[in-house]
């Protein structure tokens, strides 16, 4: 199993009542409520927590990036990744991920990622995302071309990492006169690429077609099973058999010394009005063209206020009941995580430990208890259930480097020599 720690790095010092008053906490929510002094404190506390994450035995630290919203302070994922590359020694630095369509020059991203990989001595996992609708709006990148840009930027980055320069790229969205960066990743053929998502069929299919592990973000068990049904079918059509090494799962999971304290802290996961990405306008969440034609009618009704998203503001109790949020003592959370592991069989598991206003001390307690008592138990369960990670199996980094079957294969990772 590959076990990772995650937090959204919330700007929890913003005044929540203002979010309630505005009715949204993204894009047009004024940044006068951002306090840089508190921001400085929070960034530094997170870095201290990440060092502890490594000390207590996690395998990886998962990072992400969002913009113009208090729920996530990471405006540039590669900055935090570069810091972690220098201050940690063993953990994988798992970026889930760089929002590719926002990039105006993907080769520059390829260079930044290569630097992170070299500084960390080959510990980078370079996930990619499309970026949310809010990101399209704030970066002013056309949502109608979001998926095209994602795919072209991906192709360009992989080629940059694997094809010696100089060469020229004349694409639909990116044109580069000379591609010949003097920064290349240490891992060969290239760093692993993982793709996180919240069940968009196109992304699941694309990930499976490339044999990139898909990381299901906090979905209910039944929805996760639907994801794997699609993934497994596309994998079979693509000539390989998918298994736990292609399956990742992120779950909110807070651990404390007592159940009472854990649940009290877990209420902080509801800090963004019940949605961990905060309140947003349906137009901003998925601007026109961002989703395929299949979503047109439903989105038209939603944007006009004729319908509403189901499940928004579900109570903590309801979320705990359907196992999309876990909180308790180490023993309690292991029991619940076992259910998820048995039902959905992920080889990659990310524990989203802390959010909202959970204090620095309680965050560290959560990390420490998880490392000391939860992770060893999960590793045992993983062994029992045969949940092996891409690292355990040294799986190919992609279908392009696969010999067509699961398990050890040509194209698994090696440090460049």
């Amino acid at each position: 199993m590959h076990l990772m720690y995650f937090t959204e790095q919330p700007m929890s010092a913003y005044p929540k009542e203002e979010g309630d008053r505005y009715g949204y906490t993204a894009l047009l929510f004024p940044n006068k409520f951002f306090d840089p002094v508190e921001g400085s404190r929070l960034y530094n506390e997170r870095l201290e927590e990440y060092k502890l994450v490594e000390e207590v035995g996690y395998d990886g630290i998962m990072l992400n990036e969002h913009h113009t919203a208090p729920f996530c302070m990471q405006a540039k994922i590669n900055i935090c990744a570069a810091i972690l590359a220098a201050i940690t020694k063993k953990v994988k630095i798992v970026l889930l991920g760089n929002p590719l369509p926002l990039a105006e020059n993907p080769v520059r991203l390829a260079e930044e990622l290569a630097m992170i990989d070299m500084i960390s001595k080959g510990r980078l996992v370079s996930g990619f995302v499309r970026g949310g609708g809010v990101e399209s709006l704030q970066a002013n990148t056309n949502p109608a071309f979001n998926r095209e840009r994602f795919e072209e930027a991906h192709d360009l980055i992989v080629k940059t990492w694997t094809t010696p320069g100089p060469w020229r790229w004349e694409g639909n969205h990116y044109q580069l006169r000379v591609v010949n960066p003097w920064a290349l990743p240490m891992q060969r053929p290239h760093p692993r690429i993982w793709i996180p998502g919240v069940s968009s069929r196109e992304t699941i299919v694309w990930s499976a077609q490339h044999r990139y592990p898909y990381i299901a973000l906090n979905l209910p068990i039944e929805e996760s099973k639907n994801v794997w049904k699609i993934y497994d079918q596309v994998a079979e059509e693509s000539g390989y058999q998918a298994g736990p090494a292609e399956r990742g799962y992120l779950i909110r999971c807070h651990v404390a010394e007592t159940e009472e304290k854990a649940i009290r802290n877990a209420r902080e996961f509801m800090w963004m009005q019940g949605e961990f990405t905060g309140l947003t306008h349906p137009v901003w969440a998925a601007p026109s063209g961002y989703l395929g034609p299949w979503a047109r009618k439903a989105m038209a009704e939603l944007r006009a206020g004729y319908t509403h998203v189901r499940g928004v503001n579900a109570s903590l109790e309801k979320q705990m009941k359907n196992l999309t949020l876990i909180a308790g003592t180490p023993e309690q959370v292991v029991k619940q995580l076992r259910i998820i592991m048995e039902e959905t069989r992920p080889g990659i598991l990310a524990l989203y430990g802390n959010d909202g206003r959970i204090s620095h001390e309680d965050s560290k307690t959560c990390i420490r208890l998880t490392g000391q008592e939860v992770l060893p138990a999960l590793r045992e369960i993983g062994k029992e259930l045969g949940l092996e990670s891409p690292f355990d199996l040294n799986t190919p980094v992609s279908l392009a480097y696969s010999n067509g079957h699961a398990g050890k294969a040509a194209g698994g990772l090696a440090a460049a020599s």
Partner: protein
Amino acid sequence: MGIQPTRGEIMDQFLISTLDYVRAGFADQGKFAEIYKERPDVDQLVTWEINREMSTRIAWKPYMFNQAMPHLIKAVTVPTLVVWGKQNHVVPLSCGERYQQAMPKAKLEVIDGGHYLEAEKHSELARLTKSFIAAK
């Protein structure tokens, strides 16, 4: 693609629903309801959505204007009538003024109404057009 305003901004349709955007184009909300009903049908919403997807593709950035436009329309030397709604909250009057200034023989008429004069003030627009053509 239109012309960049010198005063004000073109209302950003990509930040609001199609329903709110079309409503904003009418000075007279009664007229909106007469054409589309108080609560437009879902089919109408879908049509607006398809239109917006095309606007996204062609007018995302720069938003709804072409910086070459003032230079290009200098070549329009025929008599031209520009009609603008006084209560147009979608595209500022400064755009109408720029059209008029850029085209040597353009005339600007500002009348009561919103952005969709052809729907909201069709009789007045037809009257202005007929008299403009008759005068030439």
